[in-house]
Structure formats: C-alpha cells, structure tokens
C-alpha cells in the first residue's frame, strides 16, 4: 500500500514537480519572531475563498435582474434547505472580511512591515482593501430590496457629483433617472465577473511579494529561523477556525436583513449604507452646499492616496512600536475618527416611522369599516391577492405583507400599482389586476385601512357582510346614507340599525319605502333574494356608533326631512 502511494507521488512529482512546489511553499524559512500577530492575512484569504464558494452556490438559484433577484433570494432563504445558511455566510462573511482586512492592515502598519523593500506589497494590499469595499458596494444592490435600492441610489448620486466625470459616470452606471435594470446588470457583472479575477490576481501577487521579501521579522529578531509548516500554519489554522466559527454562528443565529421589494416610490424610506460605509456617510453630512464635494470626492481620494503613500512618507528604518509615536498617533486618531463618525451615524439614524396615525382613523374591526373598504375585501378575495400577500403575520409569501406596507401609500399610488404593477415597482412579479376604476378604488380603500394590528380582524369579515356591502355599493346607498362615517347625510345614518329595526322592517323599507312613510325620498329597490338577504344581514350587523358627528348628522337629518323617527 505504502509503496503504491510512494510510487504514485514519485510519478506525479516527476511529471509536474508538484511535490517540490508544495514543499517549497510549506517549508519556507520564516523569522523565529513570526507568530500570532501575522495570522490575519491568511484569514483574509480564507474568507475570500468562503465568499467565492458561497457566492457560487447562491448563483445556482439566483436570478440577476431587478425584482426576480428579490424573489429568488427569498426562495433561496425560505424554500431551499441550507439556503438561509448560504446567504448568511455570504452576507456576514462580507462584514467579517472588512474587519479582518482592516486588522491585517493595522498590524502591518503598526509593525512597520511596509517599509523598504516591502512598499509594493503594501500598495497591492491597499488595492485589495479597495476591492473588498467594491464588493461591499456592488453586492449591496443585489438583493434588490428597499435597503439595497435606496442605498445604491445614494451611492450613484454621490458618484454623479464627481467633478468632470460625474455625468459620464452616471451614464456609465445607467443611473440618470433612477436605478433599474442597467445599473443592476453593471453591478452584478462587476460583483461576480470582473472583481473576482482581479482580486485573485492581486492576492497571488501579494503572496508572491510576501514570499519574495520574506515574512517581516520583529525588530530584535536576528538570525534563527523556523519553518512555515507546521508552526505558523498551525497558528493560521487556529485563527481561521475561530473566524469561521464566528461567521458560522452569525450566519445561523443572526437574522440576515431582507426587507421588502425595492420600492422607488417609498418616500418615507431612510436609506443607510452598510456599517462599514457609515463613516463616509457621516463625513458627507459634515459638508454642505459648495463644500459637499470635499466630503464626497476630495477627502476620500486624499485618504486613498495617503494610504498608498504611507511607505514613502515613513522611510525611517525604525520598526519598534514604542518608538513609532507618530505612526501610533495617526492610527489612533484614524480609529477614533472612524469610530466617532460611525457611532454618530448610528445614533442619528431615526427609527423607521410606522405612521399608522397618518393613514387616518384606525379601524380595529371589520364592522367599523366603511362599506367601500368592505367591498374591497370582496375584490381582495376575488382576485386571490392572499396567494401572494400576507395580511396578518405568518409564513412570508412572495409579495410584501400588506398590513405593514399599505399604510404608507396614497390611494392614487395604489390604483396605478394595481393597473400596472411594474410601472411603480420595477421588476415586480405581480400581475395587473383587471378591475374597473371604482372596483380598484374599493380595493385601495380596504388596503389603506389595514394595519398590522387590525389585519386579522379585517380579514375575518364574513362573506355575507362583504356581499352585503357590495350590494350597498352597487345600489349607491351611500349617496344618501352614512355608514361608519362615510356617505352622505340625506337619509338616516345606518349604524346601530339592529337596535332600532327588525329584519322584516328593513326588508320592507328597501322593497317599498312608501309603506313606512309616505313622505320618504327613498326610492324602492328591486333586489334578488340573495342580494336582499346579504344587504340586510350586513346593515343589521352595523355597530351603533357614539361618534358625535354621526349623532349630529342624525338629528339634523331628522329635523330637515322629518324622516321616520330613529328611536
């Protein structure tokens, strides 16, 4: 067995030189002072591989176009076994990658490991940092939820403010009007096709340069060396394991954000970038008006240039940490500045307002809905909206939960959205609803009354009441009667009817109003048996309302028309 293995190894070695190559790589001599402080580079490479791997797996079930992207991501997370974990790893891996890359850089900076002759290694490293940020920026759009959309709108707006190239960049990114398919395709291609090969190349170059100059020793280290394997590889592996455990736990335990589908008409949305861009975001806020350019373009450019130039500013041979007061000071100030800006940005982020009150009166029971809205429930059921939309809480469906999203919309928005969903929400998979305007407006009336608190109660409206409300609307009863505060006040308000009248009386009144009062203005109605049944059931279910306006209306009506007494 052993001889067979030896034979195989010899055969491969003779043909490819693989064994020698691996041995050269593993048994490299490194300074005796190498140790735990140098593990971060390896961890960063490992995390890059995890990102590549999980990204590749996600691509198997991801549709890279607006709208579809969102739905497919939801599908990955809710339908596929392990899908939630894959996205969790990819999402949190991005954040962890930033942490590790910056730590790596800080270590190199503090230990002066960028000094001659390692300037090129440092510069390539800065390039890799920028690439890591570029992944974060382009990947942010790919879920195509509200967060992705609005975050990217802000990003492209900033790009458009760049001097000279601003308008060109805007056209290049396809973000003149708003962002859509063009921007999405550009970001996707950058994220998965262009950036990975560049990154791979720079990583290889970086490792080559590290190998060429040898691992940087600590200042006191003279002479003795040790082998890369297994001493340092062990330390690297332990560090990688710790990082991976942290990532895995986050992917399993921490909720990965996926907001609702990108909504370009959502004026209330407060866009915020990913946490590692918050400091930039906050910097922008410091500069207003003509100075804005300073924050958007000048300072970031200077910062990148400064980073690149670090090895050339600092050419002293001194590497001892305690004597590098300037370097320490700069790093300390940068850390404090970064933390300060980030914390300020987090603290000043307003909580997303859920403005149920702005939507008008809140209704907590279907019986208190105006008939129009109740009719809307009918269309909601007829059109099977619940196939894709949740009202109350429950398993997420393909469309957004309407109880939490409707309150922020206007009726006009809803009507337009029903007629042509993709005109307002590009990429949505919602089919157009083929109803006429008055029917659509009923549907909108219902949705506008929805809140997370009352969704279940409203959903529970019995069919017979909905049917009754439809008869009520079809016969335009609302032109004379008020129900739940809506409708005209020519006839008596109908709330609390059951306390005043019997079923038979109401039926007779509808069929032949003259039978109860010869002076009534109410015309007779010819309704079918079932129409009459549902209308009367509905009317008798209306609660008595203590609302002042309706009480007043009743007395006014009584005075003006001397209609049959209500009591």
């Amino acid at each position: 067995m052993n001889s067979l293995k030896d034979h195989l190894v010899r055969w491969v070695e003779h043909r490819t030189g693989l064994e020698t190559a691996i041995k050269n790589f593993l048994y490299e001599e490194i300074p005796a002072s190498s140790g735990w402080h140098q593990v971060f580079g390896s961890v960063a490479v490992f995390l890059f591989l995890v990102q590549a791997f999980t990204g590749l797996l996600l691509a198997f079930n991801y549709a890279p176009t607006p709208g579809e992207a969102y739905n497919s991501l939801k599908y990955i997370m809710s339908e596929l076994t392990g899908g939630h974990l894959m996205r969790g790893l990819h999402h949190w891996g991005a954040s962890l990658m930033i942490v590790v890359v910056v730590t790596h850089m800080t270590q190199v900076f503090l230990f002066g490991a960028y000094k001659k002759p390692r300037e090129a290694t440092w510069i390539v490293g800065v390039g890799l940092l920028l690439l890591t940020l570029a992944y974060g920026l382009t990947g942010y759009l790919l879920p195509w939820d509200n967060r992705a959309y609005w975050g990217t709108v802000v990003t492209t707006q900033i790009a458009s403010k760049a001097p000279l190239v601003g308008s060109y960049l805007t056209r290049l990114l396809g973000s003149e009007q708003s962002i859509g398919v063009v921007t999405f395709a550009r970001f996707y291609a950058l994220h998965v096709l262009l950036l990975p090969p560049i990154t791979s190349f720079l990583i290889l170059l970086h490792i080559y340069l590290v190998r060429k100059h040898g691992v940087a020793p600590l200042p006191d280290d003279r002479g003795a060396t040790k082998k890369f394997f297994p001493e340092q590889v062990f330390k690297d592996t332990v560090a990688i394991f710790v990082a991976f455990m942290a990532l895995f736990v986050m992917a399993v335990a921490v909720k990965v954000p996926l907001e609702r589908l990108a909504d370009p008409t959502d004026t209330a949305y407060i866009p915020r970038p990913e946490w590692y861009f918050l400091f930039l975001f906050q910097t922008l806020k410091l500069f207003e008006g003509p100075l804005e350019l300073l924050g958007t373009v000048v300072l970031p450019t200077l910062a990148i240039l400064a980073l690149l130039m670090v090895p050339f500013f600092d050419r002293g041979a001194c590497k001892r940490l305690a004597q590098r007061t300037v370097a320490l000071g700069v790093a300390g100030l940068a850390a404090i500045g970064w933390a300060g800006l980030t914390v300020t940005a987090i603290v000043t982020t307003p909580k997303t307002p859920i403005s149920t009150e702005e939507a008008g009166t809140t209704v907590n029971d279907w019986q208190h809905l105006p008939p129009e809205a109740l009719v809307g429930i009918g269309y909601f059921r007829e059109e099977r909206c619940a196939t894709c939309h949740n009202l109350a809480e429950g398993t997420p469906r393909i469309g957004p939960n309407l109880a939490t999203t409707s309150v922020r919309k206007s009726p006009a928005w809803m009507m337009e959205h029903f007629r042509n969903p993709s005109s307002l929400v590009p990429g949505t998979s919602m089919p157009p609803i083929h109803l006429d305007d008055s029917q659509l407006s009923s549907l909108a009336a219902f949705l506008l009354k929805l809140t997370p608190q009352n969704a279940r109660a409203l959903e529970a409206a019995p069919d017979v009441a909905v049917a009754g409300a439809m008869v009520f609307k079809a016969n335009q009863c609302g032109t004379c009667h008020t129900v739940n505060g809506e409708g005209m006040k020519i006839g008596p308000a109908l709330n609390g009817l059951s306390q005043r009248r019997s079923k038979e009386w109401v039926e007779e009144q509808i069929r032949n109003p003259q039978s109860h009062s010869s002076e009534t203005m109410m015309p007779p109605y010819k309704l079918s048996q079932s129409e009459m049944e549902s209308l009367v059931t509905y009317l008798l279910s209306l609660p008595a309302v203590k609302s002042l306006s309706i009480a007043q209306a009743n007395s006014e009506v009584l005075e003006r028309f001397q209609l049959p007494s209500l009591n």
Partner: protein
Amino acid sequence: MTEEQTKDRRNFLVMAIYGLGALIGAALAVPATVYLLWPPRPKKQEWVEAGSLTPLQPKVPEEMVFRRNRADGWKITSEKATAWVVKMSQKDIIAFAPQCPHLGCAYHWEVQNKEFLCPCHASRFSLEGDVLSGPSPRPLDRYEVKIEGEKLLLGPVYSPKEQRS
C-alpha cells in the same frame, strides 16, 4: 526540548491543522451539498375555482377553462388550465386532467361515439376515463374535486389507478 518532545509537538500541530481543516471543510461541504442537491419541497397545489356546475348536463363532459397559479421556483405564473368535467350525479363530479396519459396530447370528447378520443395515437376512453383501446397505459388522470354549492373546486391531479391500488 528533547528531540522526542520536538517530534511530539510537531505531530500534534500537524494533526491539529488537519483536524481543524476537516471540521471547516465539513461545515461548508455538508450544507453546500444539501443546498445544491436537495430539491425543494414541492408546493401543494391550491384549490382553485374552475367554474359553475349549473350548466352541466348529466353525463355529458364539458371542457372547463380556468386560471390557476403555478409555482415555478421563485416565480408564480398565472396560467390557463382546462379540465374535462362530467356530472355523473348531483354529488358525483369527475374532473379529468386534459392530457392523454400516453404521451400528453390533448384529447377531446366525441359526441357521437360518447367516448374520449386522443388524436395522436387513437387512445379511446370511456366516460369514466377507463381505457377502451389504444396505447394509453392507464385511465385518464383526474383532479381532486371539491364542491361548494354550485362551485367546482379543483385540487391536485392524481391517477385513479394508483389511488385504487
């Protein structure tokens, strides 16, 4: 350190590297394999309203056309679907899926012969969907049926032969 100790330490380090590496590899490979190779749970076909039973004549098949939502991965498409519906009695309604069980052609009802005929390979089926002649391997597939008042609701498709066995 003696040479023996150095060797032990080295062995420990190498084992630790392999061990931790294997743990990470497994933690990535197992979920990845499941994710890639485990097909998602099939969606239960929802009950869908096919139409009214009122216009149906007893024992005369009618082709009913209705719309139903089909889940295709992350996409839900609304598509037209048909069913051949037979009212055997007031309570007993059969709804056949519109494809011949042989190769999936659309068959139709021959009014004169009082049988279903598939134009592709001339499979013939009785009013109950049983094969009279031709290459069809089994009787016509059926929708599960629910009746609500005069409304006919259709569910998933099944093969009556499998159901019986």
